[in-house]
């Protein structure tokens, strides 16, 4: 009699637990817009050490090109939901951004994330908002001039970046030294601990521009990989993705994008980087008709 009561009690407890976890599991399947509407916060993951996409400037402010684009998305979210939403930034790095997105800690990654097919298995990408390629940063006068010179040399890279993966898979003769973040990699280069540091060309330009003596450094080599930057978001969320893409298209169409580009990459910008004809055409052609 006591025995039967105990078993019933235990079974009820497990059913209750299961139902509550099931309920939680289902709650986690809400769309990003629903989540933003419910919490009132739009959280964006971005870089802190990648000028000029996301970095801390001399006035100790967290600013950047990608952050400005994310603010445009924020404005459209507020319009769509019809109420003010808080805009929050969180640091994300190549090795933490996908987990941050899947766990719901951030709603959008707007930094320097390259859109690749394998990454599309885990996240969805917006339209490409910047196009560059991987190169090498070396001390001026270094014998390394490109990808063909790296065999047997120590090359610094960031863990989780596409550059590290390309070198590891396609150029195993280079000695990869992998760091968790960009500042550590650049310090290693500055101290001669690595012979070259690899990253996307524009990020290297940012590092060079922010270095104490920019003339000591050179960016060398043809693009050895194509790096289109996109904003990443959780999969299977077409409504949110439409908002992000429409924001980008409106910005390119309405020239707001080019004003921001001029601000960060123009001759007076943080990191001068003129846009090539090909990239301009590509950006314009991404804007599909209304």
């Amino acid at each position, binding site marked *: 009699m006591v025995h039967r009561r105990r078993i019933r009690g235990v079974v009820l407890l497990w059913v209750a637990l*299961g139902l509550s*976890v*099931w309920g939680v*599991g*289902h709650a*986690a*399947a809400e769309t990003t817009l629903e989540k933003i509407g419910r919490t009132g916060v739009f959280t964006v993951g971005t870089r802190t050490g990648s000028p000029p996409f996301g970095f801390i400037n001399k006035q100790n402010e967290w600013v950047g090109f990608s952050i400005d684009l994310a603010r445009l998305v924020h404005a459209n979210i507020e319009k769509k939901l019809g109420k003010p939403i808080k805009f929050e930034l969180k640091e994300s790095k*190549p*090795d933490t951004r*996908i*987990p941050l997105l*899947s766990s719901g800690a951030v709603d959008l990654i707007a930094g320097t994330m390259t859109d690749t097919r394998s*990454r599309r*298995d*885990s*996240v969805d990408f917006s339209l490409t908002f910047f196009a560059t390629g991987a190169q090498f940063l070396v001390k001026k006068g270094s014998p390394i001039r490109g990808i063909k010179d790296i065999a047997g040399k*120590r090359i*610094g890279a960031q*863990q*989780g970046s596409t550059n590290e*993966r390309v070198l590891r898979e396609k150029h195993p003769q280079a000695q990869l*030294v*992998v*760091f*968790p973040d960009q500042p*550590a990699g650049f*310090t*290693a280069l500055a*101290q*001669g*601990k690595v012979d070259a540091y690899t990253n996307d060309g524009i990020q290297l330009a940012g590092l060079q521009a922010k270095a104490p003596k920019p003339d000591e450094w050179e960016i060398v080599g043809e693009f050895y990989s194509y790096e289109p930057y996109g904003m990443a978001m959780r999969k299977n969320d077409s409504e949110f993705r439409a908002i992000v893409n429409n924001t980008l298209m409106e910005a390119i169409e309405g020239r707001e994008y080019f004003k921001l580009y001029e601000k960060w990459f123009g001759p007076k910008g943080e990191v001068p980087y003129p846009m090539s004809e090909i990239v301009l055409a590509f950006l314009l052609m991404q804007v599909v008709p209304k």
Partner: protein
Amino acid sequence: MIPVLFLGLSYDFRWSVLWTDGHGGWILEGVLTTLKLSALGWVIACLLGIVFGAMRTAPVRIIRWAGAAYVEFFRNVPLLVWLFFWYFGAPQILPQSAQEWFNRHGAEFWSAVLGLSVYHGARMAEVIRAGIQSIPRTQFEAAVSTGLSVVEAYRYVILPIALRLIIPPATNESLNLLKNSSLALTIGVAELTFMTRQIETYTAKAFEAFTAGTLIYLILCLGIAAVMGQVERSFQIPGLIARVGRAEH
């Protein structure tokens, strides 16, 4: 996967990422690097610990002060800061050619070994000091009265007893050392935690990758604890430690 479906979660488990595409080799390489790093760090830390722990109990004040200075200096700085110091900071004072040689010969690995050794050496010194100081002074006086010098008394009487007494806290410190070796990834050492993160960035299967790391560290630590337990049993001096158990009438 039935519990997962029941819970309505949408995560797609794929444990094979841990061994396909050469990832198994990565994990193995990571484990070996962790073990190498920890073993070297442990040996040097124990030596430093014995020397400085004994120094802190010496009858001569200058020696005691030197031991205390080492311990306080090295244990009061976070290990992560030490790693950055030995890798990015200290080599700067060496001449250029020495720096270049160091860079070409495993600077990352040896900086990590140095950082782990000095930090855990300081902590071991405290553990050993506690062990030595728990030995009644009468033992030391008895040893010296049989004609042994101070150093001989330490070497043949005090330290052997102290080393047996400190096996439990020393095991604790050794496990800490093994776990702290994971910090070496911040200066580019490809140890186990680095490899699990590598698998995660390549496959986006965070749960599987980090579970693998968790389980491996757990097994390594339990293994070390088991070995230390065995060491404790095989080296014990009968009657030295009071076994607190059922009162015998």
